[in-house]
């Protein structure tokens, strides 16, 4: 047996230094030995298949050592939907090392390497990224990420499902720069009120913020169709057939769902990540990264515009095996390379060690991704109903400082206290007006005051939960829609918020947000991997942090003025 020995007991005398080291937070993290036969291995396993492909009559009949009769449904879906039959044999004939070098080499344009990627099988892609060290992987991400301008996403939730807290933190998150805001619930029946709080708060912070509420598929889609949320993300997919079926879905059901969202004009991405299959005990002896590459190709085959990956809720598994965080970076690279929008993890409690948390973050933050965090906790982690994130509100100033140190754009900025107080207050007041107009349980002035100055859910008066749930039910029953909320906001004197919200709804008509990696600028200009396609081609090209944005990121909470060293820059 392996790895079930208890931690070393202090039966023999240990040095003082050992004591110090024993007490370091990193030793609270769990680490395990690899077990490749069972798939408990990051990305280098003798049990992964060898790359191969064979095409007959315009159809792939062999994939990574298996013939069509031997295909499981992942093989079938990938062969029939993801891989480009016309180019696959030529692409597969290219040496893996050559492809790996193309990924790193700035002189190979993104379009060329993406086109080549369309013909590769999962085992071949794995073979390529296995050749790359973590710096090369970051080089690859820098080049292949689909949108030119990096962005970030936040979690805005409440341990008490308090919609006022969600609104205030959404407003602060928006003004700090997040392009997307996501929420979920403790008590699911609260969803309509919390989703309204998120939407209203998000539109107060600044224009162009998109929101979503993670729920089971039917309700999530319902809120989306009513225009109370603007996108969807928690559509999980898995790398083995057995785990996919355990999740009560198939590639075909998920592909159908992807089209359903698009048919309502709603932006959507899938979610997957290394470690989920071995966590559920059905990795079928494959490495975590091999299985994740299958997920990425499945997502691509379904025609969904993007993917949230980077282990996500299973981060403790790759995080515990050797090379695991390299594998996590590699999965973000593959998602980007396969021309999908990549919301790149960094969204779950990862480590007790602040150093480890930061090092896990850099492979996404330094090259930039479409969303560096697919959930930076814009509430204190104890209020995070996604079970905690790698970063939370306590880390705002650290994040801003790292951006300034490295001259890297992680999508956030320092915001002056008075601005934050003002948007938090306004968000709470706007929601107060909405609740009053919709006959929902009143939000008191005391609650508005609390929201303005609060940190966590502890700082708010308790709500009448039963009355709120009754209100939530009536919102669904009465068929309240996003348009109703716009009207209420306009009528109650929050015309600018109403206008922002209407702009978000209006975009459904254009379908512009359905394109790869689409977000809004603050002026509601859609920014996708079309009009803002990544054009990195080596030093001096691509997205560079400069000009007005760089000036903005130079600001921190405390910076001594050069002009008058007795004062700080404001």
């Amino acid at each position, binding site marked *: 047996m392996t790895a079930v020995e208890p931690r070393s007991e202090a039966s023999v005398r240990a040095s003082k230094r050992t004591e110090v080291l024993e007490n370091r937070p990193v030793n609270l993290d769990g680490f395990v030995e690899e077990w490749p036969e069972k798939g408990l291995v990051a990305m280098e396993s003798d049990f992964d298949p060898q790359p191969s492909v064979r095409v007959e009559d315009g159809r792939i009949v062999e994939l990574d050592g298996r013939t069509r009769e031997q295909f499981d449904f992942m093989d079938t879906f990938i062969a029939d939907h993801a891989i480009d039959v016309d180019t696959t044999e030529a692409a597969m004939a290219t040496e893996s090392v050559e492809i790996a070098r193309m990924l790193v080499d700035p002189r190979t344009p993104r379009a060329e390497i993406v086109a080549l990627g369309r013909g590769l099988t999962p085992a071949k892609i794995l073979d390529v990224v296995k050749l790359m060290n973590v710096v090369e992987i970051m080089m690859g991400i820098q080049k292949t990420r689909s949108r030119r301008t990096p962005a970030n996403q936040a979690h805005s939730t409440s341990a008490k499902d308090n919609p006022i807290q969600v609104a205030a933190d959404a407003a602060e998150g928006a003004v700090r720069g997040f392009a997307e805001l996501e929420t979920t619930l403790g008590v699911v*029946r609260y969803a309509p009120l919390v989703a309204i709080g998120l939407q209203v708060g998000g539109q107060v912070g600044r224009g162009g913020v998109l929101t979503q509420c993670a729920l089971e598929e039917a309700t999530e889609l319902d809120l989306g169709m009513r225009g109370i949320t603007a996108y969807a993300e928690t559509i999980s997919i898995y790398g083995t057939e057995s785990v996919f079926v355990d999740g009560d879905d198939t590639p075909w059901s998920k592909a159908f769902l992807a089209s359903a969202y698009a048919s309502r004009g709603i932006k959507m991405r899938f979610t997957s990540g290394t470690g989920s299959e071995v966590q559920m005990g059905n990795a079928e002896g494959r490495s975590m990264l091999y299985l994740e590459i299958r997920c990425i190709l499945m997502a691509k085959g379904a025609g969904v515009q993007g993917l949230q990956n980077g282990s996500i809720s299973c981060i403790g598994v790759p995080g515990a095996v050797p090379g695991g965080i390299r594998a996590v970076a590699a999965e973000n690279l593959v998602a980007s390379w396969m021309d999908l929008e990549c919301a790149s993890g960094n969204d779950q409690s990862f480590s007790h060690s602040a150093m480890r948390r930061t090092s896990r973050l850099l492979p996404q933050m330094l090259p930039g991704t479409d969303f560096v965090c697919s959930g930076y906790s814009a509430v204190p982690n104890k209020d995070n109903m996604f079970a905690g994130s790698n970063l939370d509100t306590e880390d705002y100033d650290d994040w801003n400082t790292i951006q300034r140190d490295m001259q890297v754009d992680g999508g956030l900025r320092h915001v002056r206290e008075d601005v934050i107080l003002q948007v938090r207050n306004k968000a709470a007041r706007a929601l107060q007006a909405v609740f*009053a*107009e919709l*006959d929902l349980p*009143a939000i008191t002035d005391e609650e508005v005051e609390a929201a303005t100055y609060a940190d966590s859910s502890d700082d708010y008066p308790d709500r*009448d*939960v*039963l*009355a709120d*749930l*009754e209100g939530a*039910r009536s919102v669904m029953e009465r068929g309240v829609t996003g348009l109703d909320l716009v009207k209420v906001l306009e009528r109650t004197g929050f015309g600018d918020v109403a206008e922002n919200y209407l702009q978000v709804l209006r975009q459904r008509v254009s379908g512009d947000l359905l394109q790869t990696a689409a977000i809004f600028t603050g002026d509601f200009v859609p920014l996708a991997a079309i009009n803002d396609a990544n054009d990195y081609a080596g030093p001096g090209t691509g997205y560079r942090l400069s000009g007005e944005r760089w000036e903005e990121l130079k600001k921190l909470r405390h910076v001594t003025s050069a002009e008058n060293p007795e004062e700080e820059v404001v």
Partner: protein
Amino acid sequence: MGEPVRVVVGVDVGNSTTEACLAEVAGDRADRVDRLASSLTPTTGVKGTPANTAGAVTAVRRALEAAGRPSAVPDTVLLNEATPVISGLAMETISETIITESTMIGHNPDTPGGEGIGVGTTVALAELGGQDGPVVVVVGAGADFDDVAERVNRAVADGVDVTAAVLHGDDAVLVVNRLTRRIPVVDEVSAVDRVPLGMLAAVEVAAPGRTIRTLSDSYGLASTFDLDSDQTRQVSPVARALAGNRSAVVVRTPAGDVTDRRIPVGTLTVTGSGRSLDVGVDEGAEAIMEAIRRVAPLTDVHGEAGTHVGGMLAAVRDTMTDVTGQPSSEIAIRDVLAVDTLVPTTVQGGLAGEVARENAVALAAMVRTSRSRMQAVADEIAAQLGCEVLIGGVEGEVAVRGALTTPGTAVPIAIVDMGGGSTDAALLDRDGRVSAVHVAGAGELVTKLVDSELGLEDRDAAESVKRHPLAKVESFFHVRHEDGTVQFFDAPLPPHVFARVVTVTPEGLVPVPVRTTLEAVRTVRREAKRRVFVVNTLRALAQVAPQGSLRLLGSVVLLGGSALDFEIPAMVADALAPHGVVCGIGNVHGTEGPRNAVAAGLVDVHAGLAEPVGAP
């Protein structure tokens, strides 16, 4: 044919809801009123204050939308003359039990072990062995049940006379099952380390479903501890405190005592009919209500400064000052309702978190003022909607008019409107005179009583118990409702309600966080409603009834949200039946149920269908 048709909206600003009734009124003779729609929305701000405007405007808009004319502008909005009524609640515990020197452990662990009584000297487990006389073993925290049993068995085998045991953990049954000799064992004594050692002690455990007989009886204690008559008198509070328990421990210490005392919680000074009376809150509800009756009609009440009661009454006054701008000295408390209740309270000095049901008094107080600021509301509504706004009759009077449209009613008629903070009554007599009254105490007080008597400490749960009938989930496929009927389900019920007492709500079944039976919860709920709604209905009606006689009332119509409650109307009707009063739920205009009486009444009065009443 050529008569002008005007759109009129009656708006009733109530304590918690604002109602509107939209109608078309034809012609000056106004012999035709076409009611088009009604609406209901929460009242904004304290009733009778400018903050009401938002709710009133919403109610008007809603009614217009419901009538399919969202962009229409009404010709006239009619507002009721809403009198601000503010109520406050307080609850004071007035008795307490105090144990000194750890003489007694009288709590009821779920599962004591063994049966019978054992008397001996207290000895710690670690010291067990070699004792001559009978011993009671005292076992501290962290002991394992197997170890305890083994150790006691060894001592018994060595000849020690172990007669009983007291345990820290929840292990009594486990220990007893492993002992060679059957002894009574009391467990879950959280402060077991404070049990004095080397003292004579007695442990008694009754059979399941029974209560102890010896330690809960003064003479039983006397025989057990060999006491003389003076000593027996001294220990009688111990016996009293232990009555009703399934298990108990008594340790005889030189200075140990149990006292049961009244807590002075301040006095109320009630004023009326030109005189003032002082009454101690700790004298109980009956004494307080008697004092109020003696000074009737009440003109004001003050609470002793520096006490909770004083603070509560001051807060009610302050709120009214904020609302009306009247100085606090001009604001009078016009009614108080006192109710006796029992509150589970942890006994001071107890060793096992013993809980006693202590006496408490709950008070509801009410202030009203004649100075309404409805004109300000009217002006703002006029500005926002761009129409004429008129302030109509006093609500009680208009409500009677609305109630009178209930099919089958006739003058004289009385109405009762049971709200959240106050219970209101009005009477229209044969001469067309209307008298109206507000009394303190309504839904909020019921919630508070349910909350404290069930020990919920959860207002939401108490509110749910108040509003919805109960049921017991007997399996995943059926529940037994409180009326005894059984309901079956095709799909299994959610696991969190399994085996629980639940409220049956439109949202589904909601567990009530208690461990008592459905019957106990039901009794608490009905008693709370009876002591507040029934008592108040009788009290309020007596104040408007001719010569104070309910028999002269004729018929009583129940209005407002509480009239929609599943049991209050029946409880009130039962209470009124002996007085020969016909009591029923209002059905305004035969369609609106108990809602919309004032709003509809305003329109009718305006249209001349009904004579304005009480007008100068």
